[in-house]
C-alpha cells in the first residue's frame, strides 16, 4: 500500500522569503504525485502534478516541485511567498488511472507580514 509523509505540521515564514515543504512517499511502482492547497473553509485546489519526465514541474502562483525517485520525495518550493499563500498544503499520491488519492497529513503555512 502507498503512503505519504509530510514531516512538518506547521511552517512559519516571513513575506518575501522562500518556502520549501517536504513530502516523502512510499510506493513500489510509478507514482503519480500532486500538491493541493486548502484555504480556510474551502475545498482542495490543485497546485501541480507530476506524472513523468522533467523532475521539476511548475504549478500555479509561482509554485514548483521536484520529484526525486532515489529519495522518494516530491518537495514543493516557492521563491518568494505572499501573505495570501497562508494555507494548508497537502501532498498526495495516486497509483493509477482514476484511482483514489492517498494524502499526507498536511503542512500549515503561516506567512508573517
Amino acid at each position, binding site marked *: 500500500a502507498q503512503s505519504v509523509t509530510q514531516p512538518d505540521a506547521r511552517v512559519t515564514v516571513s513575506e518575501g522569503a522562500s518556502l520549501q515543504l517536504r513530502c516523502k512517499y512510499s510506493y513500489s511502482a510509478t507514482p503519480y504525485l500532486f500538491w493541493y492547497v486548502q484555504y480556510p473553509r*474551502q475545498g482542495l485546489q490543485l497546485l501541480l502534478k507530476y506524472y513523468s519526465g522533467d523532475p521539476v514541474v511548475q504549478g500555479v502562483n509561482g509554485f514548483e516541485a521536484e520529484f526525486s525517485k532515489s529519495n522518494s520525495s516530491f518537495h514543493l518550493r516557492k521563491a518568494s511567498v505572499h501573505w495570501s499563500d497562508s494555507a494548508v498544503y497537502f501532498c498526495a499520491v495516486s497509483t493509477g*488511472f*482514476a*484511482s*483514489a*488519492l492517498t*494524502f499526507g497529513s498536511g503542512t500549515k503555512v503561516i506567512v508573517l507580514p
Partner: protein
Amino acid sequence: NAGVIQTPRHKVTGKGQEATLWCEPISGHSAVFWYRQTIVQGLEFLTYFRNQAPIDDSGMPKERFSAQMPNQSHSTLKIQSTQPQDSAVYLCASSIGTGSYEQYFGPGTRLTVL
C-alpha cells in the same frame, strides 16, 4: 465551468438522524470520489464511481454509510443513524477519467452531529 458542486455546505443533525449529502461533478467527468476530512484522521478516501458504476468502496464504514450515483450528473452519500464521530467535512471530487489522474474537489459539506 462551475466546478464540483456540493450541497448543502453545512448540515447539522441530531444523533440517530439520517444525513444525505449531494455532489454534482464537473460536466464530462466520468469519475467521482468521496473523501472525509477530520482533524484527527486527516483526509480519508471513502468510495468512488466510474461511469456511474461503483468501483472501490474500501474506505466506507461497513455500517450506516452508503453511496450512489444514479446518473452522470450527481452522486449522493447517505449516512443513516448519524453518530457524533461522523462529524467531519465530506469532500467530493471528480476526474475526467481517460488518461487523467488529477482530481478536482468541491468545497465540501461540513456535517455536525449533535
